[in-house]
């Protein structure tokens, strides 16, 4: 039986860009950094411009993002370094340095804007893996 709480979770990061950083270039790094590894937890990822120097990264993923963040980092450290270089308030690169890595985990935890109220899902127990499996059967 499905849990009441969806297995999927939203991650919503508001990122302020340093002066001179092009939002179009930055969003490519931001999405690439989070989607480069086939980990089968990410449903969706997209970036919305909020202001000339501000973007919103939205993703929907299965399970615990913190546990998977290192998988993404290790798969594409250069992508994360570009994110750290372009964003305000994040630790300095390199992301693979343990202190920077720990600071980035903390930054993501603090800057993940929680939804007002509940996160709605039409299929609260469907993971990316289960959806793929259903597709294979049909």
């Amino acid at each position, binding site marked *: 039986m499905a849990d009441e709480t969806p297995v999927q979770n939203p991650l919503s990061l508001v990122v302020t860009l340093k002066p001179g950083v092009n939002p179009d270039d930055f969003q490519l790094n931001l999405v690439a950094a989070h989607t480069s590894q086939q980990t089968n937890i990410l449903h969706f990822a997209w970036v919305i411009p909020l202001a000339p120097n501000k973007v919103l990264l939205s993703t929907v993923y299965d*399970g615990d993002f913190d546990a998977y963040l290192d998988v993404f980092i290790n798969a594409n450290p250069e992508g994360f370094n570009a994110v750290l270089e372009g964003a305000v308030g994040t630790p300095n690169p390199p992301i693979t340095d343990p202190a920077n890595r720990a600071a980035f985990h903390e930054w993501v935890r603090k800057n993940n804007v929680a939804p007002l109220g509940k996160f709605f899902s039409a299929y609260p127990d469907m993971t990316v893996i289960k959806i793929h499996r259903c597709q294979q059967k049909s």
Partner: protein
Amino acid sequence: MPTEVIGTASLPWGDIQGLILRGYNYPKGRHFVLHFPDAAAGRKLVASLVPVITTAAPWGAKPASCLNIGFTADGLRALGFTVTTATKFPEEFVQGAIARAKALVTSHNNLGDSGASGPEHWLLSLGIDGAAHAILSTWALDDASREAGTAQVTALLADSGAQSLGFHDADDLPDSFVHFGFRDSISQPKIDGAPIALTKKPGLDSQPPVATGEFVTGYANQAGPPLPVPISPEFGANGSYSAFRILEQDVPAFFDYVGKQAKELGVPPSVIQANFCGRQPDGTPLATHTGPEPSNDFDYSDDPNGNKCPLDSHIRRSHPRSSFDFGPPPNGEGYQHRILRRALPYGPPWDPAHPDQDHTSRGLIGHFMGASLAQQFEFVMTQWVNDNSTIANNRSDALLGDNTPDGKLRMADGRTLNGFSRFTLTRGSAYLFFPSLTALKTLTPAQ
């Protein structure tokens, strides 16, 4: 006889503690929990241990015993080091096993070290903050050699002023079986650059070698460049991290459950057992496989739904290979997060003839090693073994997972086993760093 090498990497075997690169294959073990009252005592002990620490260098005749040492973050602090992420120690090591057990308790990030498996139930002071400074592990050919090794350790402890908080033994069962009734240690990662003559065992397979940096600090890993090493390149390279674990196995409960289900479903008990493990008791995989038995040459590409090997069987949850669309080796996600298991059973074999007289603790004890505890030991436990939804149907690893109170296992034949509790309990844990010999030699009493 020249020693052959796995893969192509060239490693300084004489500088790397031996248990990292090779399975010793000794039948006896003893693990001491050490405490350093002050830096001088700890450093004096380490200096006296350096000449007798076993390295990965080839040995001629097999020695009567081997000896290795790993330090907790508290232990390195007691020796005078700054152990923080600023000195390039990974955050999970800085925090230590007790803090991580208390932190990783949410349903999607559950280490499983809470409740009856929490630090308050751990043995040998391992659950007491600041008590455990090092684990000194010895493996031996027989009881006499283990006692001789112990006498040597005891003398060095007395001379240095370092303290032993106690020890725990390990004792092999016949034919490399574990208490749950399975042949163990068939699938171990093959490390690029490890000596092959010393790791060769029946079942050595055609799986590709794993990058050195997955298990030895300072080398490239599967994803690319090396992770930063702690303190300095001289100190931090050629080491490894370990989750030292005492895992109690509730063997009477397991066989009681297996027996009842076998009777109810009209199958031999070994069928139920095999569904829990993913292998037959003799090691034969349930998955389609090739090569000599017990085979390690298989994936799950023809079995996406667990109709040959159950999705929640132990070997499939802890090393999913090509399951769950994870992709082929060597880069598929299901082939990452590998763990070296340097563990042996402890406690006497269970006697099914006298189940009511059994009040003995038994299980598995040893080191679960990798270059990143977060990405190997912790990831496997939280995301694959215990996650109740991410990769499966609100279930955990049937044999190792945190299944209390209501485990479920869909067997290969489609029928479902349910209503079982957790069979494997945590009775101790310590996060350790195993430094190179070069690093150990810097720990002289004068500093």
